[in-house]
């Protein structure tokens, strides 16, 4: 009988360090898409708070530490890193194997991302726990700032290799820049 070996989306690709950024894979235990039914968002938020101590995030925001809820579009959020509690007021879909998550961290992280996405990533605009759906190169992504110089980029699993390639190439470009001497 065949034995199937589980591999992570970025297996064999990460981690790697390029110049002043580190790329590493994030592998949460579970990812669940939560889409509250009409008029149920407050009740769903209360239920999440009671079960996990985090609220349903407002647009463009992430909530929670450890387990997190990341807004992922109109009327939906991704619960990352925890089993999903019973939420009668929402549609909950297990997407654990659907996503690849890459953490990019380091002094040049925002500079690298700025080469790939049209988002305004200035630290005073895109703050800690801010999140956005946008594009990175040609790919639709979810991008969340998780630290002073740290971001998490999510893409559909099938795009993991392209994501790593795009980030690597951009990081190399930033690392190879020769700062003009004064």
């Amino acid at each position, binding site marked *: 009988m065949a034995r199937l070996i589980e591999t992570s989306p970025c297996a064999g690709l990460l981690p790697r360090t390029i110049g002043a950024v580190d790329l590493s894979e994030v592998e949460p235990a579970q990812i669940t898409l939560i889409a509250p039914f009409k008029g149920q968002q407050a009740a769903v938020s209360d239920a999440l708070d009671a079960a996990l101590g985090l609220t349903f995030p407002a647009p463009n925001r992430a909530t929670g530490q450890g387990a997190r809820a990341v807004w992922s579009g109109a009327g939906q959020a991704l619960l990352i890193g925890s089993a999903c509690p019973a939420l009668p007021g929402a549609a909950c879909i297990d997407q654990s194997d659907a996503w690849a998550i890459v953490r990019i961290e380091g002094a040049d992280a925002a500079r690298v991302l700025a080469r790939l996405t049209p988002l305004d990533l200035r630290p005073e605009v895109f703050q800690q726990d801010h999140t956005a759906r*946008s*594009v990175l190169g040609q790919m639709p992504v979810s991008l969340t700032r998780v630290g002073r110089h740290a971001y998490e980029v999510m893409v559909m699993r099938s795009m993991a290799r392209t994501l790593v390639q795009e980030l690597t190439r951009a990081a190399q470009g930033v690392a190879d820049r020769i700062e003009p001497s004064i």
Partner: protein
Amino acid sequence: MRLPCPLCGDRDRREFYYQGAAVTLNRPAPEADADAWDAYLHLRDNPAGETRDLWYHEAGCGAWIMVTRNTLTHEVLGAELIEGVPA
């Protein structure tokens, strides 16, 4: 070009898909005559000035929005969620 998504804020044009004039929101009644349906499906104004059209925030929040803009000045005047527009 940046469009002001009511959910996401000012975003780059490449995140959006352009659908067309917002007149498609005004669907004729099922029993309307052929002229009304012909106009709805095929006839579009080509306004010089303020216009309203539908955009889909495809690579963003996934919402349909109605953008008001000026075809003479290229000024973008505002946007609202289709969800909140009475049919």
